[in-house]
């Protein structure tokens, strides 16, 4: 006799977190459901004993036999596990079963994203997948500064190397900062050409597909997550203290005025104006001001998100609201985001389904350019920021050549104000119509409106204006974009073994941006700041307008035979407005094949492999990520006056390049996916080779060309090849609820890029820093041998090379470089390539331990090799000049007595020590502990009174340690991490500037659901 029973339960992770969207299917019956965000499910079943197959993205599928009578509050725990074959992953224009994939991609689960609660999505991807390199831009740790993402290295020199971000199927043009990470339930990074080719012209740098939370049928579920914590600088820059600076100044003057002083103890130093009176007071009273300590403070952050989702038979919804705020490590810096998300899905009859999704955010960034560091590092440690009455000095810092303004003046309320307010609304709409069996039409539309209002005001007495006129800037901008897509899909299985899936697309994308900016100075009253230029003087203004369009046609065919042989063919044609007439269209083909080896009959009896798949793909993607109007040339404005008559002139600075065409990249990818011990260990290996053609390069022309600005041209080729390895293993998994588990996920990747061809057989283009056979970002400079010593041998050699040995320009004590070409003198011919910012390898590792309700996660990231350039050491911001005018990095500089062979002599007669760039190259190796997180899932029994179904509390330390970094540990740098290639073409690749120091933070949080 059949009885119908309602089976209720929860699907949780082994750490007790509810699993949203997990699939619960009755074995052999096919009935099933999907869990709601609190992990709850209910099923009507018709027997007393059933086997449930429970699966979720990122977890090992589990079969659990349930006796219905005993079931009661059924709780099913799933262990994390990747590469589950039935797992469905989001791919371009659709989803695929993992088993059916032919391309190379990395899927990152919600769990992985939640392990490291961070302010923005790019930071969340750090260390999560092979080939995904996430870096801070130039050492910038401002609140709200989004790190840059590179997929498989730098391939383009000028065009952007940032991947395309696609949110819920629609390209997202806004800042990745505008997406609330709490709304994201999954991220897929498409890496090889076969996966990205369907994004054609915009896919060359990889594609990041972001999926946001949607409602599910069932009782409404309320979730809350929140955290709060603090941020501190990861360290101080190693500048000199009072006595060290006193000696530097003296040595500088001794070397800068040969014969004037008897030595370091010459009493004349104390009376001849070498030191300002305030510094002399400082010397007498052993003052040693730590200006960094004066500048830094503890930053705070807080984040809250409340979500409600649910649905009835035909309608599902999800609503959430979030708030995030963080303040920086100096006053005046903060980032705040308010976000709202709403999604609704509606079924109309049997054939039609439509849905809406709206992601809206409002962000306020304060002090995004606030950077008193240069002044703080240069200020004389013998002086004080306060006068004898304890009041803040509103003037130059004594003893710093009247170039360094008291950096603390910037923190006086209203003195330095900078804020940006952004409103971003991203809306997508779809309409699905089932036309016939297997045949579906989908209309997809997305629109994004982004407004940006920026203002700054710097009073006269700030480091920005050094006592000069107060300045204000006010700018506004609006960007709008839309995407319209018509998709036709046909999905059928013929004869049980022939699976065919066809996707056809026609789409139009348009982006339009306009902005205005007004600057003025000497505003009547400081409190007016930038709000009303009517009361200011010398108003100047600029404006810009941009628009681009892409029209695309795409077709993709997937064919699977007996789940064993898989084939994907894609063809996309894109037309871009940004290229010259005649070159606007390009066709991007790709093909991929895969072989599920373990589905072969000969594998039936091997139990070793639970998964084994070989993949091979080849395809071409393009890149037009260049600014519009580059094919037209342009004039630049310049102001002048003839007596009292003022004029604005315009002169040619950019020449037209009517031949500009597509840059395209062809990739060959060979991959192997494997799973052993019933998928307890899973992984994949990918080998790839990328060929980039018609590189879009900004080429600096010889000055005699009369064209001062670089010309964008299609020249040359680059190649990238690499290996990516991803392995995940459940190392320990003891039986029973709450037992000890240890899971490790490891990814390693190696990328080697190089330029293989330049224009007209040119093999080196020094002016543009391109060298055939070397990677982009190669360092080309003199070869440092050491320091010229005051020995007979060195003097003789210097003389032979025609170097000066007398006066303030004497080379003795300065950097000694090699006469590489052996022509008997040091000249430009002695420059050589010496390394690049390309690391040897990079990798990430996540270890997750759980025991009873506790979970502990460690995420580590390593980069080994590669040369970084630290402008701090290259006297960036005049901090390491060896002149003695300003404070200096504390190094063991050369003196006639110490024979130092690394750091040159101080010299007051030289603004910068010669060959100072050679002081800025460092080994970029480091290992970083990205995060340490300890969580505890409260036992259900504790929650019964609260109404919560689940609750987890945790504490996370973000970026707590930097290990094995010679730059930090040996040379006094703070953080070796830098965005590679983010300043593409600017020559700043791999460069660390003097900016907000790297930070670490500690947060405490709670996640719960009702």
């Amino acid at each position: 006799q059949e009885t119908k029973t309602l089976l209720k339960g929860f699907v949780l992770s082994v750490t007790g977190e509810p699993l949203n969207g997990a699939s619960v299917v009755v074995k052999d019956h096919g009935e099933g459901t999907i869990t709601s965000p609190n992990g709850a499910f209910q099923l009507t079943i018709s027997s007393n004993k059933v086997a449930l197959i429970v699966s979720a993205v990122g977890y090992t599928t589990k079969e659990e036999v349930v006796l219905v009578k005993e079931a009661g509050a059924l709780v099913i725990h799933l262990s994390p596990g990747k590469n589950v074959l039935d797992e469905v992953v989001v791919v371009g224009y659709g989803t695929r079963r993992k088993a059916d994939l032919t391309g190379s991609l990395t899927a990152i689960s919600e769990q992985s994203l939640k392990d490291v609660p961070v302010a923005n999505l790019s930071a969340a991807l750090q260390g999560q997948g092979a080939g995904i390199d996430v870096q801070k831009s130039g050492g910038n740790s401002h609140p709200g500064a989004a790190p840059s993402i590179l997929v498989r290295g730098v391939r383009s020199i000028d065009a952007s190397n940032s991947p395309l971000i696609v949110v819920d199927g629609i390209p997202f043009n806004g800042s990745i900062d505008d997406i609330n990470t709490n709304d994201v339930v999954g991220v897929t990074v498409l890496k090889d050409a076969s996966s990205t080719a369907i994004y054609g012209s915009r896919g060359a740098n990889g594609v990041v597909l972001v999926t946001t939370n949607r409602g599910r049928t069932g009782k409404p579920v309320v979730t809350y997550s929140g955290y709060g914590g603090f941020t501190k600088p990861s360290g101080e820059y190693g500048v000199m203290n009072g006595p060290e600076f006193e000696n530097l100044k003296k040595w500088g003057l001794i070397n800068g005025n040969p014969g004037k002083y008897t030595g370091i103890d010459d009493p004349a130093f104390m009376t001849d104006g070498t030191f300002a009176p305030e510094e002399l007071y400082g010397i007498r009273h052993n003052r040693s001001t730590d200006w960094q300590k004066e500048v830094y403070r503890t930053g705070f952050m807080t984040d809250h998100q409340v979500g409600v989702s649910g649905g009835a038979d035909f309608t599902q919804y999800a609503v959430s609201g979030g708030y995030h705020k963080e303040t920086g490590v100096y006053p005046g810096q903060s980032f705040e985001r308010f976000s709202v998300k709403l999604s609704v899905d509606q079924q109309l009859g049997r054939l039609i389904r439509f849905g809406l999704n709206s992601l809206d955010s409002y962000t306020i960034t304060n002090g995004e350019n606030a950077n008193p560091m240069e002044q703080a590092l240069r200020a004389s440690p013998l002086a004080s920021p306060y006068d004898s009455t304890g009041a803040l000095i509103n003037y130059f810092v004594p003893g710093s050549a009247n170039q360094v303004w008291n950096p603390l003046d910037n923190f006086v309320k209203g003195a330095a104000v900078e804020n940006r307010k952004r409103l971003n609304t991203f809306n997508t709409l779809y309409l699905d119509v089932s036309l016939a069996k297997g045949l579906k039409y989908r209309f997809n539309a997305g629109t994004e409106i982004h407004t940006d209002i920026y203002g700054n005001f710097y009073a006269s007495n700030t480091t920005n204006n050094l006592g000069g006129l107060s300045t204000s800037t006010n700018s506004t901008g609006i960007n709008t974009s839309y995407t319209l897509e018509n998709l036709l899909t046909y999905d059928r299985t013929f004869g049980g073994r022939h699976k065919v899936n066809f996707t056809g697309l026609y789409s139009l994308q348009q982006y339009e941006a306009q902005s205005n900016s007004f600057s003025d100075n000497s505003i009547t009253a400081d409190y007016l700041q930038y709000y009303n230029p009517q009361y200011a003087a010398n108003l100047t203004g600029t404006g810009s307008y941009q628009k681009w369009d892409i029209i695309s046609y795409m077709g993709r065919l997937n064919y699977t035979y007996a789940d064993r042989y898989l084939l994907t063919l894609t063809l996309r044609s894109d037309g871009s407005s940004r290229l010259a007439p005649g070159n606007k269209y390009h066709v991007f083909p790709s093909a991929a094949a895969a072989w599920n080896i373990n589905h072969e009959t000969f594998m039936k009896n091997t139990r070793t492999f639970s998964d084994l798949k070989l993949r091979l793909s080849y395809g071409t993607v393009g890149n037009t990520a260049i600014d519009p109007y580059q094919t037209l040339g342009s004039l630049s404005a310049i102001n002048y006056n003839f007596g009292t008559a003022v004029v604005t002139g315009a002169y040619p600075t950019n020449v037209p390049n009517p031949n500009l065409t597509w840059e395209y990249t062809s990739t060959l990818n060979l991959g192997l996916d494997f799973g052993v011990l019933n998928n307890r260990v899973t992984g994949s290996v990918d080998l790839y080779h990328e060929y980039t053609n018609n590189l879009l390069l900004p080429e600096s022309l010889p000055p005699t060309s009369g064209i001062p600005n670089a010309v964008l041209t299609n020249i040359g080729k680059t190649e990238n090849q690499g290996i990516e390895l991803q392995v995940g293993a459940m190392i320990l998994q003891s039986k029973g609820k709450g037992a000890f588990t240890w899971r490790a996920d490891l990814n390693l990747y190696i990328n080697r890029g190089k330029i293989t061809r330049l224009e007209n057989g040119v093999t080196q283009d020094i002016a543009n820093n391109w060298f055939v056979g070397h990677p982009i970002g190669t360092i080309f400079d003199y070869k440092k041998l050491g320091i010229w010593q005051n020995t007979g041998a060195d003097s003789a050699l210097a003389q032979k090379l025609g170097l000066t040995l007398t006066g303030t320009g004497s080379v003795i004590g300065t950097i000694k470089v090699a006469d590489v070409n052996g022509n008997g003198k040091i000249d430009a011919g002695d420059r050589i390539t010496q390394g690049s910012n390309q690391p040897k390898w990079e990798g990430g590792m996540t270890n997750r331990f759980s025991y009873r309700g506790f979970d502990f996660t460690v995420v580590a990231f390593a980069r080994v090799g590669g040369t970084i350039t630290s402008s701090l050491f290259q006297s960036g911001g005049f901090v390491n000049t060896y002149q003695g005018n300003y404070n200096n990095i504390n190094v063991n500089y050369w003196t006639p007595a110490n024979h130092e062979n690394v750091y040159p002599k101080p010299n007051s007669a030289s603004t910068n020590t010669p060959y100072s760039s050679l002081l800025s190259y460092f080994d970029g190796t480091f290992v970083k502990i990205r995060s340490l997180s300890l969580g505890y899932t409260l036992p259900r029994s504790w929650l019964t009174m609260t109404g919560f179904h689940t609750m987890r509390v945790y504490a996370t330390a973000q970026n707590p340690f930097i290990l094995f970094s010679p730059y930090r540990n040996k040379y006094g740098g703070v953080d070796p991490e830098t965005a590679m290639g983010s300043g593409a073409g600017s020559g700043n690749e791999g460069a660390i500037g003097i900016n907000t120091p790297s930070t670490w933070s500690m947060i405490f949080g709670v996640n719960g659901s009702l």
Partner: protein
Amino acid sequence: CQRKLVENPQSILTPAFFKTAQGFQTGLDAAYAGNRNIWGPVDYATMSVPGTDEFITGNDGNNDINKYNSNYTSSTGTLSNVWTPCYTYINTCNGLVDNAVSVTGLDTATRNEMVGEARFLRANYYFLLVQQWGNITLNEHFQSTPTTSAAQSPMADVYAFIIQDLRAAIAVLPPSPQTTGVLAGKATKAAAMHLLSKVYLTRGWSPAAQAGDFTHAFQVADSVIHVLGPANGVYLLQDFGQVYAEGNEANNEVLWSVQHTTNLAYNGSATQNNSGPDNLYCHFWVPKYEVEPGMQRSTLYGRPYIRWVPTLWLMDTAFADKVNDTRYAKSFQNLWLCNFAGSIPVWTSPLPPGAPANAVVGQPKFTLNDTAIFMPGYDVSNAQIAASRYLLIPPRKYSIALSPAMTKYFDINRSNMNAPSIRPIIIYRLAETYLIAAEALLMSGQAAAAVPYINAIRERAAYPTGNAAAMDITAGQVTLDFILDERARELCGEVTRWEDLRRTRTLLQRVQLHNSDGRFTITARDTLRPIPQVQIDATITGPAYTQNPGW
């Protein structure tokens, strides 16, 4: 739908605009504005003022180039900072000259005059390049397509092109800056003729010399002095001190100036942050007075960039006569009045021998607005220095931080004490025309004829307190050295000295004699600047760009 792929820019000017009447005018304005990148910033002045017999490097700044030491190389940024804008604005001028025929909407006279202005500016940029670098690239036409190659032209071709431009300009330009309707800073016939005479003079000295160069130089200069000038309001001012008086930059002696304005939005940088094309000449000669007792920085005394200090030769020898010749006193500051009560020194016990009668131990040595620093220009004993109430600095105590300050470019009407100057910069003035005429006569063997030209300058220098007759020289005194010394007295600091010494082949000798910075380091290669490395590095197709000898 395909129409969506057509670009219609709405916020940028494209090269087509350059060919319209409006574009033609804005292009010409830009060609003028380009001069602010040359005169005003530190780079070109560094290549012309110090490293000579007049000035050595002061306490601050990048100065290897002025010391001719081995750290001065083709990569020294100063070089490309001058080289690059010259070529950029030459191309602007090329565009104006080439496009002129096809521009519509301008009447012929206006168009011709505008082309004349463009040719004057182009000649001026090329003249600077050829004087500093020798054999350079000569672009005669507008370049509107990218090129990665560059040819070098013989100096002779460059001079010929400059002369051709100036002759064409002279034919169409209005007579002088004083002519009704001519705006300040505009090119005129007077300026073009002055420049042409200087070009002839320079070519006459060079390996590219043509027969008659010195004669031509004299004829053109003399024509400015005696024909064009008098008829068009151009004459020597009575008082040398008025030539560089603040606010008098459009005086009757001025032939051409690079403009700056009190309308800060149209000055070099709107924020007056001393960047880009600002006029910084007001800062370069200011010494480090502000750290001395009783002193602080002020708008009156200026912002001490301390770039250049006078050589002892300039102070003692060139300006040996400080009585009849008023130019030293009118060009240099040697007295600073106390402007800061907070650091006035007090007499300490025991009082030094010879201390002033009213000196009291523990009492301030002087008060606000009393003398705080004084450089008498003659030697005083150490005892006198010790007994002085103010800081007394004889020439033997001049230092690279504190020496007499050249005041020609001082600007007390700047927006604040750190702001750049709002004064126009005088580039060519009639006094130099006289000295060009004199040098041209000397070189064509007519030393005696040069006497009146030199005396005109010298007699004026006596006004109002000196004995003009005592300033006069005779034919026997007219030598190259005398003319160079006279140039130093009249034109010191006026951004022409390095070229003058180089032209007259006296650079090495005079630096070795009078310049303590470069005395032992200057060599024959220093008579030309090295081609900027960026030029050599970026010339990647065609023949390699040849570096100058010895570099």
